[in-house]
C-alpha cells in the first residue's frame, strides 16, 4: 500500500459513492437512508475476517479497482492474453467470452432470454435488476431488503449495504413452477460483474425454481473485493435450488453473504461450485429452517495456488421435523488451504442434521481443516458428522493406470469422480465445462 487511508477518508469515499448511487438510481429515500445507516455502523462494527485486516479493507475502499486490467474492454482484443488463451482452451464461445468481459453485447441468447422473461412475467415470474425492482416494487422490496442481515453485524455487511449495486430481484408467484433453470449471468449480465450485487429471492408458497448464478468460465472483474449478498424468502411448500458457479481471478477476495428463511415444508438446495475461489473466499451462509423444511448446503471447492477458502454455514432447525445437510468436497492443490466449519443447531423436536466433509489433498503443502459444529437444544434430534481427508489412493491410481490410462488421465478421472456425486444437480451444459476446468487444474494448466 502506498499510503495509509484513515477511517475518516474511507467514510468520505463511501459517502460520495452513496450520493452517486442515489442520484444514478433515483432510488426512494428509504433506500438512501438505509445506505447512510450502514455507513454510520461501518466504523464501530467488528470486521470478523480471517484474511482482510482493517487497513487492507480501507485501502480496498480507497482503491477498489485492481491495476493491469484494461480500463475499457471494448473488444476481445483488450483481454489480457493469458485469460483469452484460457478461455479458448476451455472452448468458450466468442459470445460467451464477451459476456464474461462485460461487453454490452446484444446476443441471440440475450434476446431469447428477454422474450422468455416477457412470456413468463405474465405467469408471475419476475426477474429484474434489483435497482429497478426497488423503484418498480418498492413495498415488496422494502419488506424484504436487509431483513435477514443487520448492518452493524460486520464492517463487510455495512459496506455492502452502503454501496450495493447490481444484483437480481426474483419473485415467483404462488404455485408457479418454473420448469427450467434460470441462468442469471445471461439474464442480467451486470449482476455478475458489479462489486456488491444484492440478490433478493422471494418465493411464494408451493413454487418451484432453479436459479443459477455466476458462470464456470473465469470472469474478468476489475475490483479486489467482491461482496455479494443474497436474501432468500422461501414460502410454505416451495422447492428452490440456488446453484452458484464461480471462477474468480486470483486477485479477488470474495465474501459471499447468503441467508435464507424457509417456511413450513420448504426445500432448498444451495450448491456452490467454486472452480476459482479468488485470493480468498469466506462464506458463512445462514438458514432458518421451519417445520418439516429441508435445506442442503453443498460446497464444491477446487483450491489452487495459495488461495484460502473458508466455508461456514449455519443452520437453525427451528420447526419440528426440520432437517439440514451441510456437505462439502474439496480438491486441494498447491499451497491452497480450505477450512470448513458448518454448524447445525437443533432447536425443535425430531430435527435432523448431518455435516460431511471430504477432501482430496493433491500435494504436500495443501491444507485442509474441518471444524464441524453440532448443537442440540432438544433431546430427540439426530445430529451427526463425518469427515474424510486424504490423498489419492495408490490402489485406485494403479488400477486405472493398469488399464492403459497415463498418470495424468488417471488422476483427472479420480478427481472428477471424487466431485461427481455432488454435481448431480448441475445442468449438463455447465457440467461439461466444469469437468474440463477440473482436468486443466489437475494438470496444472489453469
Amino acid at each position: 500500500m502506498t499510503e495509509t487511508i484513515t477511517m475518516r477518508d474511507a467514510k468520505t469515499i463511501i459517502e460520495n459513492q452513496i450520493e452517486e448511487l442515489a442520484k444514478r438510481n433515483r432510488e426512494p429515500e428509504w433506500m438512501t437512508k438505509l445506505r447512510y445507516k450502514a455507513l454510520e455502523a461501518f466504523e464501530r462494527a467488528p470486521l470478523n475476517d480471517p484474511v482482510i485486516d482493517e487497513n487492507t479493507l480501507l485501502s480496498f475502499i480507497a482503491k477498489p479497482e485492481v491495476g493491469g486490467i484494461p480500463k475499457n474492454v471494448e473488444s476481445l482484443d483488450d483481454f489480457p492474453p493469458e485469460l483469452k488463451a484460457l478461455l479458448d482452451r476451455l472452448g468458450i464461445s466468442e459470445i460467451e467470452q464477451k459476456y464474461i468481459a462485460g461487453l454490452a453485447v446484444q446476443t441471440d441468447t440475450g434476446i431469447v432470454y428477454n422474450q422468455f422473461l416477457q412470456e413468463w412475467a405474465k405467469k408471475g415470474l419476475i426477474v429484474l435488476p434489483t435497482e429497478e425492482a426497488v423503484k418498480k416494487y418498492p413495498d415488496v422490496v422494502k419488506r424484504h431488503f436487509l431483513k435477514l442481515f443487520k448492518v452493524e453485524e460486520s464492517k463487510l455487511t455495512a459496506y455492502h449495504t452502503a454501496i450495493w449495486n447490481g444484483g437480481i430481484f426474483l419473485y415467483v408467484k404462488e404455485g408457479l413452477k418454473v420448469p427450467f433453470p434460470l441462468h442469471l449471468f445471461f439474464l442480467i449480465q451486470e449482476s455478475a460483474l458489479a462489486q456488491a450485487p444484492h440478490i433478493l429471492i422471494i418465493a411464494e408458497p408451493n413454487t418451484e425454481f432453479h436459479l443459477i448464478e455466476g458462470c464456470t468460465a473465469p470472469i474478468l472483474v476489475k475490483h479486489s473485493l467482491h461482496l455479494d449478498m443474497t436474501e432468500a424468502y422461501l414460502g410454505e411448500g416451495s422447492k428452490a435450488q440456488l446453484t452458484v458457479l464461480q471462477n474468480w481471478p486470483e486477485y479477488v477476495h470474495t465474501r459471499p453473504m447468503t441467508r435464507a428463511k424457509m417456511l413450513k415444508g420448504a426445500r432448498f438446495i444451495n450448491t456452490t461450485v467454486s472452480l476459482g475461489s479468488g485470493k480468498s473466499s469466506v462464506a458463512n451462509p445462514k438458514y432458518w429452517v421451519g417445520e418439516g423444511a429441508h435445506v442442503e448446503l453443498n460446497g464444491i471447492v477446487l483450491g489452487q495456488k495459495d488461495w484460502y477458502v473458508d466455508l461456514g454455514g449455519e443452520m437453525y432447525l427451528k420447526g419440528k421435523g426440520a432437517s439440514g445437510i451441510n456437505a462439502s468436497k474439496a480438491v486441494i492443490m498447491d499451497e491452497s488451504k480450505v477450512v470448513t466449519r458448518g454448524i447445525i443447531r437443533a432447536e425443535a423436536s425430531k430435527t435432523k442434521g448431518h455435516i460431511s466433509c471430504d477432501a482430496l489433498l493433491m500435494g504436500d503443502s495443501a491444507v485442509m481443516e474441518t471444524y464441524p459444529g453440532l448443537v442440540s437444544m432438544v433431546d430427540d434430534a439426530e445430529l451427526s458428522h463425518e469427515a474424510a481427508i486424504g490423498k489419492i489412493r495408490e490402489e485406485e491410481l494403479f488400477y486405472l493406470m493398469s488399464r492403459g490410462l497415463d498418470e495424468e488421465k488417471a488422476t483427472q478421472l479420480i478427481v472428477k469422480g471424487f466431485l461427481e456425486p455432488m454435481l448431480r444437480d448441475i445442468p449438463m451444459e455447465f457440467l461439461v465445462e466444469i469437468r474440463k476446468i477440473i482436468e486443466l487444474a489437475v494438470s496444472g494448466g489453469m
Partner: protein
Amino acid sequence: MLKKRPIYVAHGGEKMLKVEDLHVNAGDKEILKGVNLSMKMGELHVVMGPNGSGKSTLALTIAGHPRYRILKGKIIFEGEDITSIGPDERAKRGIFLAFQVPPEVEGVKIIEFLQQVLAELKGIDPLEAYDLVVEKARELGFKEEDLHRYVNVGFSGGERKRFELLQAILVEPKLLILDEPDSGVDVDSLKIISGKINELHKKGTAMLLITHYGRILEHLGGKDLIVHVMKDGRVVRTGNRELVERIDREGFGEIFEEVM
C-alpha cells in the same frame, strides 16, 4: 535349494513373457526371492501356492504396481525389457491384470471408464464402444443400467470378478494375468468367468492364472496347462495337470518336502 526341477517344454509360439531371477520388496520385506518363469504365446500357465508365497506379488509386479520395488532381475515381454516402464505402458503393450480385489473408484461411471479405456488402448470411438460394452456386459451377466454405476462401488465379490473379466474381454490382451478369479465367487459367477477365460484363451490370449485351489481348473479346457508351484517367494516346482491333481489330493506339504 531346488533339487528336482523338471524342464517342461511347452509348445506354442514365440516367447512372450520371461521373468528372470526376480527379487521384489514390499516396504522393507523381500517377498519375491528369485522367481523364474517363462511363457510362450497363447499358453495357459497356472501359479499355485499357499497364502503368502508371493503369487499376488508376482502378478502385481508383472503389471507394474509401484508399491513393489524390483531389487534384482528382469521382466521381458515380447523380447523387450519392461522392468522399469509404467503400468499404463505395459497395458498398451498387451498386458492385462484382472485384480483379486479391484478397488472402488467413486464417481467414475463404468460406461465412461470403459469408453475411455477402449479409446486409449484400441482407438475405438466412444459411440461404437458403447454398443460393444453393452453387448459384452450382457454376456457377463450385467444389465445396461449397471453400466451407470460407479466402478466397483458396492459390487459383490462375484460382480467384481465378472467386471474384471468384462474389461479383459473388451481389451483382448495378449497376456491376461488373473489373480484368483475364483476366490469369493458363487458357482454361477464361476461358470460365467471360466467360460469367458476359455473363450479368450481360444482366441489366443496367453493366461497367467493365479489360484489358491485347483477348483477353477476343472472348468478350464486345454490339457496343456503348465503349473508353477510357489513357496516363500520362489517357484519350486513346475509341472502339468497331474501336478494340480496331486496338490488337490495331498496339499502342498509333500511337494514342498520333495523340493527342500
